[in-house]
């Protein structure tokens, strides 16, 4: 296995690991950081937030779902695009996929109108779902144009007249 050697200063041991490891900066940061975390935990346990265990489950759940579901799924998608999409189109297709995923993520509650209230039409007055579809269409159109540009460029590079 080849992992880049950590320069001195990181939490990693670098050359010549010790059991304790870490630099003075790391230990200072750990003390300050955990003290700041304690403020949050104390706040979560206070009367204002009676559901601290549920909050902890959500926070841990996000970490677990990311590490064991979202990240592996993204890796599978990257492998699939590497196998199924021609090299010339791979970058625009991957960028379009990533941007589409991002826009769906940030607009999902509004697009699905989860927070809509019948008595208050000023909440979600815009058809975010329709706008999302338009934006996704524009992104994929741009990706298609970029693929076409790359294909034309590659053909020109391969043509006998190239470089003449």
């Amino acid at each position, binding site marked *: 296995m080849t992992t880049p050697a950590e320069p001195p200063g990181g*939490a990693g041991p670098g050359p010549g690991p010790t059991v304790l490891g870490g630099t003075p900066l790391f230990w*200072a940061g750990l003390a300050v950081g955990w003290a700041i975390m304690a403020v*949050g935990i104390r706040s979560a346990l206070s009367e204002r937030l009676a559901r601290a265990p549920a909050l902890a489950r959500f926070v841990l759940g996000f*970490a677990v779902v990311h590490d064991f579901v979202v990240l592996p799924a993204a890796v599978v998608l990257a492998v699939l695009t590497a196998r199924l999409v021609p090299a010339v189109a791979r970058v625009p297709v991957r960028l379009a996929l990533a941007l589409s995923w991002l826009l769906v993520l940030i607009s999902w*509650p509004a697009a699905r109108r989860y927070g809509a209230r019948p008595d208050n039409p000023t909440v979600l007055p815009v058809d975010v779902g329709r706008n999302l579809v338009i934006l996704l269409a524009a992104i994929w159109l741009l990706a298609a144009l970029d693929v076409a540009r790359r294909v034309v460029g590659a053909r020109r590079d391969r043509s006998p007249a190239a470089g003449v």
Partner: protein
Amino acid sequence: MSVLPARLAAARDEVRAQPTHDDRTLALLGTALGVCFTVCFLTGLLSHIIQHPPGWFTWPARPAGLYRVTQGVHVATGLASVPLLLAKLWAAGPRLLDEPVVRSVAHGLERLSLVPLVGGSLFLVASGTANLSGWYPWPFSFPPAHYAAAWVTVGALVVHVAARASTTREALRRPDPARPASPSLSRRGFLGAVGAAAGLVTVVTVGQTVGPLRRLAALAPRRPDVGPQGLPVNKTARAAGIDPSAGDHRYRLEVAGRVATPLSLSLVDLRSMPQHAARLPIACVEGWSASATWEGVPVRDLLALAGAPADAEVTVRSLQQGGSYSSSELNHVQAADADTLLALTIGGEPLHRDHGFPVRLIGPNRPGVQQTKWVHRLEVR
């Protein structure tokens, strides 16, 4: 000895060596994300302190639009950090498989701190985004949960920064090696795409508070010009349980507490007092804001009429029964400001019921949730 299958370990090392996953990319993304998170945390903390002021804190009444800016920046940086966060997690992904899992006590503590950092960051952006739409798919109150998670996340971020400071510094100092042309994404292309994504997310949402960009706010849950009398509403009169007869001849505004002469004023009394107009924003904690011209009686005139002391502070009470926002506080600076009004009209028209008819509080530099509607009582301290 590696516990990973050899092919997986080789794939990890191959991916890790790519420019989109190396130390320099992580350092650049981490720096941008650190700046975004810090700005977002500080503006969020400020909003929390304004709404729950400790004894040493007096939030000024001027500049009138300051809260609009700080809360707009809070939401904008929160949304812009989503692509940065996802890109950082993607770029750092292969390191999840680093071996040995724990090399030292320090390394183990650093990796342990990544759990609240990753989980907390994702929870903050997800819960914040859901809150913009008024969607709460969890069994706890949003503001204290978001607040507590922010402290935990920032604490974990401090640990991460301390652990990675040296690596980051080195990666940013080292000259970027020239790489042969490749059909895969370059670092510049990757970071450019992430920056463009952050810009796009901002452009399609920030119009909910930046008026000139409202037509571009394709994915924003609010439009600052949509609502009765051209203003959005957070809580309607119906949702607040306000009696439809509120504001009829039986209405009285009470001014009580530390005053020489308690007052009980009808709407006619209030309309006959000198009126003052001010153009002020409603700046919602959820990031939307909109300005309007309000007219009514300055709170300080009512306090003077009742013989309140110069340093008076005021609790403003609504006809709304219960709920976190059925009352709000005016500190002595806000109470004394000429533009802190009990508004009777908006744009020259009587207030719409959903904007607080018959009387609402509107003051400069205050969160929207503290612009109490359906006011019926001022308690002076």
